[in-house]
């Protein structure tokens, strides 16, 4: 049985543990730096990146502002193409719907493409309770599942595992789930991948039901899009007789043409490739090609609450590229598990408290899991101003205020003083311990100085209520230094790689 994210300790405690895990930190540092450098190269190939990014943000914003219209449109076109649409207000309802749909097929096993929405709702656990086994088929998810573990990165979920550990997990666990690992399996990535290929092929060739998420849904045509690398997605999407896709309502885009923006933004931001190896699109069902039955489960589960917050709404633009994780100094040290949800890193710090509500200790601490350095905003392909949302959520944690919970307007009480203060102090202590992050924070302060109110947001507000804040300089010293001496600095950094 897979572990679930529920009941995770609050961020500071989880991070305090994970930062002591030197292997995790070494793996993460290597991974994030490698991906981040490659990404910069892939993005630099397109001289219209800024325009693509603006278009991506504008399309998503416009869609969100008229989400009811586009969802109805989508439902119409999926239905017209032979699919069936279901609506789920929360995780329990989504799980009930999917369980019922699988039961109706008479099957007890399903194959799954990696999907964060299904992790968010705890689908595997819900299916297990109903006696249905869900097999993860993405290599990293397979490693996580066999290791009875949790994913720690959006893109490379098993990044916290070394090849030797993976070999041990395969040797020990594969046989319990199906075809055992080959005799004498070594720890070379090629051999490990081959073992996964053989193990999973058995599942693919017999599976009658596939479960997926989707990267995009096109309202005008009813087309769903899944972007992947390994081909396990294609297997799950085309071999089974029944396909069930569980997709957050924010994944809709209006037109077929809009994909031209996202299919350029996503692969380069995510894996630093010009295009990911495989993209599959399908519209309802096609005679003789792929599943005969297609169900689309549209998932709310806190998304409409997020939508109701005019500052926080932008988090719903996220296309899950994971670029913000790879540049985040806090993520790099704390690791993905500390965020207590399938959405780690900067996006997790703003999405999780909004989806779940900022009521528990974890959700209250997440807006502090950041140095506000602004790097996440700079790489985000849909220009989500994560620092802005973090500051906004901190204010909610400390001061309370109007929020929407499960569709109803409520007034949130301020978090118990000491809890918020503790969270803030730990975040501050962390930042002072990590000069790099602090420098970044100052840079952000400069960047947004026109937007600064005369007082501090969040916990500092009471203090600044009676004091005038010093004006923030137009440029931090660090940036001035970079700009005036930056050439030499940059080339030296480039030479290290």
């Amino acid at each position, binding site marked *: 049985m897979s572990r679930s994210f529920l009941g995770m300790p609050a961020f500071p405690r989880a991070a305090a543990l994970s930062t002591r895990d030197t292997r995790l930190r070494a793996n993460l540092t290597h991974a994030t730096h490698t991906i981040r450098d490659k990404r910069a190269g892939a993005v630099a190939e397109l001289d219209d990146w800024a325009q693509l990014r603006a278009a991506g943000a504008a399309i998503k914003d416009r869609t969100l502002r008229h989400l009811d219209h586009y969802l109805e449109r989508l439902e119409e076109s999926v239905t017209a193409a032979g699919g069936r649409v279901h609506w789920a207000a929360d995780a329990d309802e989504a799980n009930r719907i999917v369980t019922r749909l699988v039961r109706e097929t008479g099957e007890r096993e399903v194959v799954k493409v990696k999907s964060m929405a299904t992790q968010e709702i705890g689908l595997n656990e819900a299916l297990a309770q109903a006696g249905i086994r869900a097999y993860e088929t*993405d290599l990293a998810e397979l490693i996580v599942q066999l290791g009875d573990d949790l994913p720690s990165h959006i893109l490379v979920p098993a990044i916290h595992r070394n090849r030797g550990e993976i070999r041990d997990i395969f040797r020990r666990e594969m046989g319990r789930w199906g075809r055992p690992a080959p005799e004498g399996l070594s720890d070379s990535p090629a051999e490990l991948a081959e073992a996964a290929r053989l193990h999973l092929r058995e599942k693919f060739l017999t599976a009658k039901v596939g479960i997926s998420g989707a990267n995009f849904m096109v309202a005008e045509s009813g087309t769903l899009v899944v972007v992947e690398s390994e081909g396990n997605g*294609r297997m799950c999407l085309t071999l089974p007789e029944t396909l069930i896709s569980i997709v957050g309502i924010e994944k809709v885009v209006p037109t077929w043409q809009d994909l031209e923006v996202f299919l350029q933004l996503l692969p380069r931001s995510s894996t630093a490739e010009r295009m990911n190896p495989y993209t599959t699109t399908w519209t309802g069902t096609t005679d003789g090609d792929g599943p005969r039955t297609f169900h689309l489960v549209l998932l709310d589960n806190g998304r409409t609450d997020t939508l109701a917050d005019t500052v926080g709404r932008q988090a719903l633009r996220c296309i899950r590229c994971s670029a913000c994780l790879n540049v985040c100094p806090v993520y790099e040290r704390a690791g993905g598990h500390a965020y207590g949800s399938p959405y780690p890193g900067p996006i997790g710090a703003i999405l999780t408290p909004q989806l779940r509500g900022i009521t528990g200790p974890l959700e209250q601490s997440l807006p502090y899991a950041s140095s506000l350095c602004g790097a996440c905003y700079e790489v985000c392909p849909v220009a989500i101003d994560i620092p802005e949302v973090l500051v906004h959520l901190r204010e909610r944690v400390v001061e309370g205020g109007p929020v929407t919970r499960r569709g109803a307007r409520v007034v949130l009480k301020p978090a118990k003083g000491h809890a918020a203060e503790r969270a803030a102090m730990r975040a501050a202590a962390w930042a002072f311990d990590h000069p790099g992050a602090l420098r970044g924070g100052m840079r952000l302060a400069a960047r947004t100085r026109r937007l600064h109110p005369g007082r501090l947001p969040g916990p500092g507000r009471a203090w600044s209520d009676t004091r005038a804040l010093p004006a923030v300089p137009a440029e931090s010293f660090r940036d001035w230094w970079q700009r005036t001496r930056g050439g030499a600095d940059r080339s030296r950094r480039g030479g290290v790689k």
Partner: protein
Amino acid sequence: MSSRDVVLARVRRALADVPRGEGPYDPPVPRDYHRVHGSRTTEETVELLAEHLADYRAVVHRCAADDLPALIGRLLAERGARTVVVPPGLDPRWLSVAEAAQVPDRAADTARELDAVDSVVTGCALAVAETGTLVLDGGPDQGRRRITLVPDHHICVVCVPDQVVGSVPEALPRLSPERPLTWISGPSATSDIELDRVEGVHGPRTLEVVLASGPAAG
């Protein structure tokens, strides 16, 4: 109230700040990004496609349309393919000299039967130069999505220059969302283990692309 009504009502309430007069299609999205990056001659576009395909470890061959049967025959033989899946509308001349036994793409065949086949030969709907991508749309010369997935060796023929476009924005208008599409950029790959790239986890481990120029065969 159905969950559909619940969710839609929540959406509408959440959007109380959106002015009544604002329609779902305004304001217009700024689309001042490029339709294609840089200007290239047709030749150069094909060259770029070849380069980018090779970058992601597809094996690229070029030939005149007339030489296609000989080339395909040779590639299958070099691979030692004893069987090859053939989509129903593939030009029969393409496989006229191939020695591998031809397996027709039939809906009734199971995935397990397909798993026993060595290779597959298909055409494509188009290819995108800037990204090194082949797009298959299930047309008669391409067959069902699964035939290019299960066998371990895929030979895909691109008729150049007719089937080559420069960029993703040039590709989408030429494709129909009603058809199931498969976009392929290099062979199946994973970097999940310590970021080491390994080719072929589930899809074909070897992707060979033939850029066939001249009058489109058939």
